[in-house]
């Protein structure tokens, strides 16, 4: 018995056989923010065989309050999160093969990366990427684990293709104006609690203890002392375009994705969201105001100062990010505010 994993092997749910399975498996984590850095640390310590982690951002001062792999030095060096994560994960466990990818988790990239993966963990900050993960999960029959949090409120749900409902069964569409950590704030214990649920589920899947995988949708509020388990046996939607008989995997389709374009000759990126809808600009302005942003507006648009950049948001969800030509950076700013 490897001394390193001795306490985990002692746990009857894992044992020697389970540990051997864990060390032969490959986990893909999408996002290296709060949830991603935490889950990556848990699974690296647990001795997973291979771990791939994908992120498009670099480490900023405001991340340190909850993103557990990073230090002040990483902020000073402006390291990409994926690179900073890889450095720390390798210092923690040199047995684990860590693959870090600096980039936007587009459907194309997800389809490339998912080959040979045993479990996918959701650690992204927006529903567009989650819906793409959900379609990839169904198309390639890879289980994935949804996790999300804002403030003291968080949730998790395990999805196994062919067995459980999928995210598209539950939501039917991409929610507009989902609450994000940049609009609702976040405390680190909430992150820890979501990670606890996601990684426990991941371990069950890695040791192939499918009977123990949680079938209910968990949500909780640590500040209000709420915890609820919602049974999901009736949640499967037969007409679902992601997991039903007539499936089309709509969120792998370029048509249904946020479009980003650099506006010719200007230091500006245009963002067009996949879903046409009507934003409540009043509500958004109030929210951003109370967060300390400088917001100006009229009935048709809002203009928000965001450090070096300025974002102009129209009622249909379209936005212009002035002050950058970097498509990925612009999309990241947009999704931080609009989810």
């Amino acid at each position: 018995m490897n001394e390193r994993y001795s306490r985990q092997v002692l746990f009857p749910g894992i044992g020697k056989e389970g540990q051997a399975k864990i060390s032969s498996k490959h986990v893909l984590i999408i996002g290296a923010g709060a949830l991603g850095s935490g889950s990556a640390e848990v699974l690296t310590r647990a001795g997973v065989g291979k771990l791939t982690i994908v992120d498009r951002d670099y480490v900023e001062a405001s991340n340190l309050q909850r993103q557990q792999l990073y230090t002040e030095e990483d902020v000073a060096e402006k390291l990409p999160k994926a690179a900073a994560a890889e450095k720390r994960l390798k210092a923690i466990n040199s047995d684990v093969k860590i693959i870090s990818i600096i980039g936007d988790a587009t459907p194309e990239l997800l389809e490339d990366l998912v080959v040979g993966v045993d479990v996918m963990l959701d650690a992204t900050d927006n529903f567009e990427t989650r819906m793409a993960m959900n379609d990839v999960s169904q198309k390639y029959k890879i289980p994935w684990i949804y996790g999300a949090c804002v403030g003291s409120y968080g949730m998790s749900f395990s999805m196994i293709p062919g067995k459980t409902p999928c995210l598209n069964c539950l939501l039917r569409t991409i929610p507009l104006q989902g609450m994000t950590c940049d609009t609702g704030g976040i405390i680190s214990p909430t992150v820890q609690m979501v990670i606890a649920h996601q990684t426990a589920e991941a371990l069950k899947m890695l040791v192939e203890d499918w009977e123990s995988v949680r079938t209910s949708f968990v949500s909780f509020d640590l500040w209000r002392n709420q915890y609820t388990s919602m049974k999901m046996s009736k949640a499967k939607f037969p007409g679902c375009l992601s997991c039903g008989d007539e499936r089309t995997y709509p969120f792998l389709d370029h048509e249904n994705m946020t479009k980003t374009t650099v506006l010719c000759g200007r230091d500006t990126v245009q963002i067009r969201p996949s879903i046409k809808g009507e934003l409540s600009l009043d509500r958004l302005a109030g929210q951003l105001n109370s967060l300390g942003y400088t917001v100006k507006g009229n009935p048709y648009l809002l203009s928000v100062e965001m450090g070096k950049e300025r974002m102009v948001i129209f009622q249909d969800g379209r936005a212009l990010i002035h002050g950058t030509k970097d498509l990925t950076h612009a999309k990241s700013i947009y999704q931080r505010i609009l989810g």
Partner: protein
Amino acid sequence: MNKVLFFAHLRDAVGEEFLTVNASGKTVAELKAELSAKYNLPKMETIMTAINEEFASHDEVIRDGDEIAFIPPVSGG
């Protein structure tokens, strides 16, 4: 009568952890529309609903005594 529980920002908007309302005979979508208007709640189409701790679709009909919970999916991570 029905106990209706609110999570996350819905709870802030309503100002209470739960309300007691008579929703018997209404669909989930009807109850959502009614509460949304009364409390000026943010759009409720994509908010999940549990009836007696079980996922319920928009057209499910609420019976007397059912406990309803509104669970907003969030996107932070």
